[in-house]
């Protein structure tokens, strides 16, 4: 589990130790601070609550559930208990502890708070980040998969995913609520990063307005709503791609995420069709 401890620390801001760790882990290089900021501060926030919370933001119920896990173990949760470093290091620590209670806790932590979001997160890191983070993510994924194979999921399903709020209805809830829910992975089933939106603007030939994700996405939707909705629908496939390697090792989790993303995809395509119809209707004499 020392390997996992080292991988946990590697997700922190680069310091003097990262070069040595990169060598030991066989990663191509040590990260530079700008790369770290681009990946972890601006695009792929390494917190469970972003992926498992109803608002897709830091904190909230999802973080409280993680903190509760630590409290149940008798420890005092830190200010960011759902950060990937904390979770991986806690898992490594529990696996190093030689008693039945710790072993059970490790298995709960694995399936409840790690595998419930990490496969999707790590796949996106592999897809988007510059070296050494794709290699880091691949290595974390390999270790996690090996752990998942060794420690199968307990009987109960993941509490984070038990009562998801679901995608907002643009008609009933309004446009803004709908966009917010698209950007919350727990509700939409997929991850849209700032970099993804830059990519979308280029691909669709639309003007890119710089800002936080909701602002950028709204700008795209305002220019070309149907094309943007179809791009989003196509982007939901990243979830399927991410979970494909996990179908055997975490089948329930994989099924939940893929199903949710497919439902979103269908909704997005329907909406795009509605936009097309309305446009055609508006163009009719």
């Amino acid at each position, binding site marked *: *589990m*020392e*390997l996992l*401890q*080292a991988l*946990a*620390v590697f997700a*922190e801001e680069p*310091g*003097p*130790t990262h070069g*040595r760790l990169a060598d*030991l*882990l*066989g990663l191509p290089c040590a990260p530079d601070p700008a790369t770290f900021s681009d990946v972890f501060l601006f695009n792929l926030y390494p917190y469970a609550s972003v992926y498992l919370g109803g608002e897709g933001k830091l904190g909230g119920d999802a973080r409280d559930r993680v903190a509760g896990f630590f409290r149940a173990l*008798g420890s*005092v949760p*830190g200010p*960011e208990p759902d*950060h990937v*470093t*904390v979770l991986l*290091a*806690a898992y490594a620590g529990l696996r190093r502890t030689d008693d039945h209670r710790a072993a059970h806790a490790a298995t709960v932590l694995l399936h409840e708070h790690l595998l419930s979001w990490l496969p999707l997160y790590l796949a996106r890191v592999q897809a988007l980040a510059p070296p050494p983070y794709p290699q880091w993510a691949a*290595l974390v994924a*390999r*270790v996690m998969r*090996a*752990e998942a194979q*060794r420690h199968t999921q307990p009987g109960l399903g993941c509490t984070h995913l038990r009562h998801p709020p679901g995608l907002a209805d643009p008609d009933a809830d309004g446009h803004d609520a709908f966009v917010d829910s698209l950007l919350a992975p727990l509700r939409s089933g997929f991850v849209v990063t700032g970099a993804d939106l830059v990519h979308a603007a280029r691909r669709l030939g639309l003007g890119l307005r710089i800002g936080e994700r909701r602002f950028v996405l709204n700008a795209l939707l305002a220019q070309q709503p149907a094309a943007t909705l179809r791009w989003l629908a196509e982007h939901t496939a990243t979830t399927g791609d991410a979970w494909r390697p996990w179908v055997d090792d975490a089948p329930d989790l994989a099924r939940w995420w893929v199903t949710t993303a497919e439902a979103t995809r269908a909704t997005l395509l329907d909406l795009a069709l509605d936009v097309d119809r309305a446009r055609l209707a508006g163009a009719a004499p």
Partner: protein
Amino acid sequence: MDEDLETLNARVSAARAETEARGETFYPGPSRVHLAMFPPRERWDDWVEYDATAWPRKDERRFMLVPTTCFNCEAACGLLAYVDRDSLQVRKFEGNPEAPGSRGRNCAKGPATINQVTDPDRILHPLRRAGDRGGGGWVRVSWDEALDDIAARIRAAIVEDRRDEVVYHVGRPGELGFTEEVLAAWGVDGHNSHTNVCSSAARAGFQFWCGQDRPSPDHANADVILLISSHLEAGHYFNPHAQRIMEAKANGAKLIVMDVRLSNTASHATHWLAPWPGSEAAICLAIANHLVQTDTYNRDFVRRWWNWEEYLRAEHPDRETSFDVFREILASLYADYTFEFAAAESGVDVQTLHAVAEAVAGAGTRLSTHNWRSAAAGNEGGWQVARTLFLLNALLGAVAVPGGFYPNGWNMLAPRTPVDPPRPAVWNELHLPLEYPLAMYELSFLLPHFLAEGRGRIDTYFTRVYNPVWTNPDGFSWIEALADPDKIGCHVALTPTWNETAYLADYVLPMGHSSERHDIVSYEQYDGQWIGFRQPVLRAARERMGETVTDTRQTNPGEVWEENEFWIELTWRIDPDGSLGIRRHYEAPGRPGEKMTVDDYYGWVFAHGVPGLPEAAAAQDKTPLEYMRRFGGFEVSRGVGQIHEQAVPDAELDDVHVTAHGRVYSRAPALPVSYSTGASPDPDDQGRRAAGVLVDGVVRRGFPTPSGKLEFWSSTLAAWGWPEHALPGYIRSHVHPERLADGEVPLISTFRLPVQIHTRSANAKWLNELAHTNPLWIHPSHARQLGIATGDLVRVETHAGHYVVKAWVTEGIRPGVVACSHHMGRWKPYGETEGRGSPRQRMQVSDVSVERDGDRWTLADRSPHRPDATHDPDLLRVWWSDIGVHQNMTFPVHPDPISGQHCWHQAVRVRRAEPTDAYGDVVADAARMREIYREWLAKTRGADQVSPTGERRPHWLKRPLRPQRAAWVIPSDRSPAAGGGA
């Protein structure tokens, strides 16, 4: 994990092991899982920080980080000195993460060491009195002159068999017996400690139970923490205990605090009980009664580990010696200690007492308790507070288990040293007179009275980290004694700073602060053993740079020395040719005829006396001494556990004899152990050693008591004149309402402030800024009766004097009780500075006039505290002028007849000050002081009347510097058979 991952995992593990074996940090942090509150130790040679004073520029400063140990209380927390590599000056102190007790954390007193080190008024050179003692004249002398003079006096006292005339009087020891070894080498029973104004009562209560005289509570793992003290925030071991108490609280533990005041500790409590002073034992007994009556005590533990069989045989010989009979008697013994009774005594309501008792009952074995000074030190019979508190642990079996109470010695390291002189063959009756056979320990605060009675004389008197004029009760009697060369021939003050006692010295010899001296320390702060090293950091820094330092004075400021080298040098000058047989104890191990150095001493201790250290050092390619100079601390063991349950190995059992109640004696010697075994139970009449106790058919180590078990019934108290107090009980205090005259209220004077040191923080500006005065706490209802408001001057009248102080009206104290912290009111005699060049101490000190008119002594403030930036511009930033009042001088001595503890609480009258009164006035009546001393002395039952063995004291009880057995025998003309003589 697949094979590649296994390989990768093994590679990272190996790299970590290799890194840590080099003493380096694999994950130096900072990260969310590896904090970097401290520089990683591999970078301690060259640590770079920005100069805070240069902000916003980023000027780099390079430091060498050198560990030492704080000396500002007894907790011995680790410090890291930041030594500027360019100037070789200490710039600041922070925590040492390698210190196992403090774990890198410090209270305010640790970093404030820099104030003490850089104090412009500190003493830098040896000084000798010029003119009358106390007259204020001083001349600078060389160390050689001072050493030769003092050595000649001591040599004469030894050669002329006046060994009782050499006395070393210590306040804060801060070491593990180095100086006791010196005194033993000289053959003098010259150790006199401050214990009887501090912890005697608590020690007595614990020692009668378990043979160890302090608690080592496992706060961190407790479910319920019961403190009769303010230990969380202000007490002994403040920082190491506080951090562990807070851990327990974070895990849901309940904190119960008994304190008359809303102390900082009480403010954190789940239950704060503010009982009438002295009623704490009644509350403990009511809780105990609840445990017994509800049958929620740990019957199996009581059956196995209490000396109930011995008790039944002694006190109930007509009853069957069975546990059932004992249980029946136990149920009746404390039946009168109902919650209603405790409520009537304490003023705490029945419901609260019941809730607290239920909480204690619910703790099971996870009950950690602590009492040190506080109620035990305040009240006559206060030792029963500690004894009844331990009763709760003993009832629940919360002894030497996680979350419970560990006997302190098991959690202390007692390293062997290269110095092993024979014990002294003499007994100094000025320290332990016949009247107090059970005292813990020396009756130090009665010394002026003993000298005045002509019980003896002192030729050479060392005070060291000790300021009896200011600290002790009846300080004027100390002035009288110290000023009289017929009583004290030569007073040598070993001190880094001026104090009220040093002004009455013949020599003032500057000794180093915590970063300027060597000591080793080990204290009970959790269930583990550790050792810490205090070292002169500039010496260590220069040695790290390749220089050779042979004398700590070479690196200390001015001519400031350290005591280790001082004592060794003095010993050699007492016996320069070795003819007295003294010098040989301080010859270098393996180099006969050569003087021992501190490197010789500590090198030997670390190599031979600290289990595991040589191996840990070798793993880093260091000698044990190099390891300790580098890191400052070493954890010997963790989870010492239940020593009493351990089976005694067969090798320790030979020609075994077992008594009727299971005490096991053996002729085989004990195997060496690393912990402190505590008291020394007597051998049997055949000379066999007390080796263990038979429990459930197994010879176990047991406790270091006469019975080998926990002594619910103390055969010692029963046999040495106090049978009525042989069981844990309740003694009504001298400030019990029944014993107060009309209009009198108890004054609580013992409480500490967490940011002050008893007598050594006057020169620490940072600390003084946090707390600098000591108003009289008084409840609003009480204040209304007296017509007093906050800030009003009030007169506090004790039985032998009065002082004038400001009132602080607060609901943070029990109505009908007043309190005043003992920390403040530092002064210097006006004559010390009048017309002289040296300012002496300026910070936090008033210039006063000390006058005597017959038996009437007065101390009056001559000059309000004012900043004086002549030498130190920082003093201009002193914004406060009220620095408190010295109340202790108005307190008569109250020696408890059993423990010998000075019972600090005072019965006082409080009223508005007279128009002629001034803030800081102190008046005392020496005749009343003497009368009250004699009244309390009359309560004693001296060894010459009660000793069942013909000895001065139960031999098994602990005693500093234990003399040879023959010296314990009461001289024939004063023995009980001779009709006594005390």
